[in-house]
């Protein structure tokens, strides 16, 4: 009987201790878990749909798939009241940039874009979809334009007596092949497609920034602007850094204090391992071999980027 008395008393004490400890933790973790959390989502490197997946187990750069998911998670998370996008990107592929821009636009919570070193082209497209853009006076931004480029080897091949034979069933099937020069007709055709993308890009930025299409068209020469110039041109709303971005999100969310919560995909064990050892040596080989030759032989290489 004495034995069971001890057991019951011990279990009650441990249960009470667990409740008291968990309440203590709850009280002392208030800054992190009160209703004043702001998700800080970094957008770093080239924007692509899946990140740079050329390394096994890796996804470096800014993957639209991951970023869209993070923006959605931040919206679904009840403790998150707003989002700050920390942008350090030169842009990327059209669809990936548009996917992120759309996700930002659909966000039910206020979004502040904070451009650090670089927020150009597709990355600016993303920033323009936010509620407010903060940029450092010396940041590089703007660069609204579309690029479609590839290496062309026809003259090099002629020099070495190499001929290019490709059998196709469609008239334009090998348009953009690096082994022959474009005809004028093909050049006009491709340029037309770039113009369509450019027009879409400009229209969307104009809509996002409450500017007229003509205003943005004049700025959309592909030239980049420093933050201080971009502010005068209406491409960004305010100048500053992290502090100013925090102040703005406080204003937009109506919070007096905020707690920044880092929202980013955690690297898996394999990614960390790949990053530690294989990265540099892998790219030495890859860069020389696959980077030039294999890509050059791929006629679908002409993916426009913004």
């Amino acid at each position, binding site marked *: 009987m004495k*034995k069971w008395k*001890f*057991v019951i008393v*011990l*279990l009650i004490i*441990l*249960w009470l*201790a*667990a*409740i008291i*400890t*968990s*309440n203590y*933790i*709850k009280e002392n*973790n208030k800054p*992190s*878990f009160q209703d004043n959390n702001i998700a800080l989502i970094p957008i770093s490197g080239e924007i692509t749909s899946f990140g740079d997946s050329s390394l096994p187990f890796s996804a470096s750069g800014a993957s639209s798939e991951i970023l869209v998911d993070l923006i959605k*998670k931040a919206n679904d*998370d*009840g*403790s998150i009241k707003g989002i700050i996008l920390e942008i350090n990107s030169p842009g990327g592929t059209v669809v990936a940039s548009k996917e992120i821009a759309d996700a930002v636009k659909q966000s039910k919570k206020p979004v502040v874009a904070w451009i650090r070193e670089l927020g150009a082209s597709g990355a600016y497209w993303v920033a323009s979809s936010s509620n407010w853009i903060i940029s450092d006076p010396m940041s590089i931004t703007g660069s609204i334009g579309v690029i479609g480029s590839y290496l062309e080897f026809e003259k090099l091949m002629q020099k070495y007596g190499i001929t290019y034979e490709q059998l196709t069933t469609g008239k334009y099937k090998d348009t953009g092949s690096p082994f022959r020069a474009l005809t004028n007709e093909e050049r006009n055709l491709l340029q037309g497609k770039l113009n369509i993308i450019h027009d879409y890009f400009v229209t969307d930025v104009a809509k996002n920034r409450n500017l007229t299409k003509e205003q943005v068209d004049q700025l959309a020469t592909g030239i980049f602007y420093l933050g201080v110039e971009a502010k005068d041109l209406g491409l960004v709303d305010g100048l500053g850094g992290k502090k100013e971005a925090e102040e703005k999100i406080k204003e937009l969310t109506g919070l007096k204090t905020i707690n920044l*919560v*880092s*929202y*980013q*995909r*955690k690297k898996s064990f394999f990614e960390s391992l790949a990053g530690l050892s294989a990265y540099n040596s892998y790219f030495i080989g890859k860069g020389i071999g696959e980077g030039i030759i294999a890509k050059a032989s791929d006629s679908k290489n002409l993916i426009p980027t913004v």
Partner: protein
Amino acid sequence: MKKTKKIASKTRRFFAYLIDILIIDLIIVYPFKNLLKSFNLDFNFNNLDQLTQISNYGLLITIGLSIGILSLLYWTLMEYKLKQTIGKMIFNIKVSSEGNLEFWQALVRNISKPININILLLVDILYMLINKTHLRLFDKLAKTEVVEVEK
């Protein structure tokens, strides 16, 4: 004549451990699960992504340590006072040592248990599986063994 103690089988010890884990889950872990729920976080493996993504490491470490210390107290105090935990009582086994079981012995023999999956426990169990004496490594360090309760 000195009676020979019958060493408890590994199966009995395993099921006794499972019962203790269930009791600890109910008494100690449950309040912490509620704590995570109040933070909109659910402590399960499907949710590991969210738990690890939102910079919750500080919180997780604090919770892990608290659960670990309270669980260790359960095993240590039960065995120090009664030579048995609830699991051991159900399976009629107890901790035995040459003299009276000292507090440090109860503490040392249970030090690998509080976290269900950890390297100490793996080494501990592996040691038991490969040596002939059926002792866990921490049993050996604490100079204890688990025996069947004489009827």
